[in-house]
Each structure stands twice: as structure tokens, then as C-alpha cells.
């Protein structure tokens, strides 16, 4: 059961978790990324590559599902403009055993940082700036190869 969404509206993590638990798997892991309040950022804009993004997320979710024999994998990535404290991304996995659910969840969020066409633009009191890619993300994604 693979579920990929790119909403412009806030992410409902409770509903997503409930779906994952419905996969009857025994173990559910999740990760939620939020817009931090303490970075001097007044708003975050997420730009993406329509069509290509959906395909990239589906491919990622399918790769995780096969590698860890998941009962369910969910990726919800918000796009557009969002405010501090709001959720940017939710990743969730359901598996028979906890190690598979946890490892697959970490894999998905690491790979999302490098394999999906998203760009972040931060609005600050000093103006707007595009976020630079981090080499740490490449390293984190690479550990799954």
C-alpha cells in the first residue's frame, strides 16, 4: 500500500498514522519535518517540479516497500508557502517488525533530501533566499547504497 501526496494544505499526521496502522502490520514508524521557529525564518516556500516530483516519490516509496517488505509506505510532502511550526513533510512506514519500519523510514527521509526535485526558499526579515544544498544530505542518502 503506497501513498504519495503533494498537498498545498497542512498535513494531517494523525490521519496518515491511522492509515498506516490500518495496514495491520505490528510496527509503524514515522518522521515529521517542521518549519523551525528559531532560524529567523518568517515563511518557507517549497517549489517543486510537477509530474517529476510525484514520479520520484512513488519510485522512492516502491524501492523502500520492496527492500523492507513493507505493508505500507506513505510520503506526504507539502509544497507552496508555509509558516514556522507547520509540517513540511511526513514519512511513514508499516512493517511486520520494528527494524524494517524504522530503517525504511530513515531511508525515505534521507533519500527525499537528495532524490526528489524540491527547492526551499526562506523568507527572513533581511529578504528571501534560496537554501543551498547540503553535502551532509548526500552523505546521509549515500549510506543506503
Amino acid at each position, binding site marked *: 500500500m503506497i501513498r504519495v501526496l503533494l498537498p498545498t494544505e497542512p498535513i494531517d499526521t494523525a490521519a496518515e498514522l491511522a492509515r498506516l496502522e490500518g495496514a495491520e502490520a505490528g510496527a509503524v514508524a514515522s518522521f515529521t519535518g517542521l518549519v523551525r521557529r528559531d532560524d529567523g525564518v518568517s515563511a518557507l516556500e517549497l*517549489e517543486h517540479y510537477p509530474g517529476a516530483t510525484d514520479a520520484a516519490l512513488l519510485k522512492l516509496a516502491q524501492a523502500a516497500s520492496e527492500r523492507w517488505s513493507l505493508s505500507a509506505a506513505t510520503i506526504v510532502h507539502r509544497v507552496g508557502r508555509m509558516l514556522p511550526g507547520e509540517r*513540511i*513533510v511526513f514519512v511513514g512506514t508499516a512493517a511486520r517488525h520494528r527494524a524494517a519500519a524504522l530503517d525504511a523510514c530513515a531511508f525515505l527521509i534521507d533519500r527525499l*533530501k537528495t532524490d*526528489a*526535485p524540491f*527547492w526551499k526558499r526562506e523568507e527572513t526579515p533581511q529578504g528571501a533566499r534560496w537554501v*543551498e*544544498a547540503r553535502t551532509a544530505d548526500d552523505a546521509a542518502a549515500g549510506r543506503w547504497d
Partner: protein
Amino acid sequence: MELLYFAWVREKMGRGGERVAPPAEVETVAQLIAWLRARGPVEDAALADSTRLRAAVDQVFVGLDASIKSAREVALFPPVTGG
């Protein structure tokens, strides 16, 4: 051929995309970038730093040495920062 620009590439180009018909000798992404830069000062400035440019051909991530032969859609953008 449909071109798409994202993030600061889009901003610097002043447009999200355009339809172009490069000549036959423009065979790779790198050659397409060079051809675009020759079209005017806006394009020249926007695409000057190729180390900060990434590309997709027909929605598949590729290196700048990749072929654009028979491509329908080429996207140019900065390294991704999502997730």
C-alpha cells in the same frame, strides 16, 4: 523542445520555461546551456555557474554531459534542497 526552469534559475531567467528549437549541433545539456547563454545577457548571467546547475531530460535526472537528442522536455535547476 520544452524548457523548464526552477528555483533561482527560474528567477534569474525571468520565466518558468519556454519552447525552443536549438540547431542540430546542440547535442548535450552542456551545449544547450552554452547556446542559451549566447542568446542574451539575462541568459548569460543566469546560467553562468554550471557547477551550480542540475538538469533533467524528460523528467529523468541527468549529468550535464547527457544527450538531449529527441528530448521533449529539458529542465534546468539548482541542486535540490527538499524534504
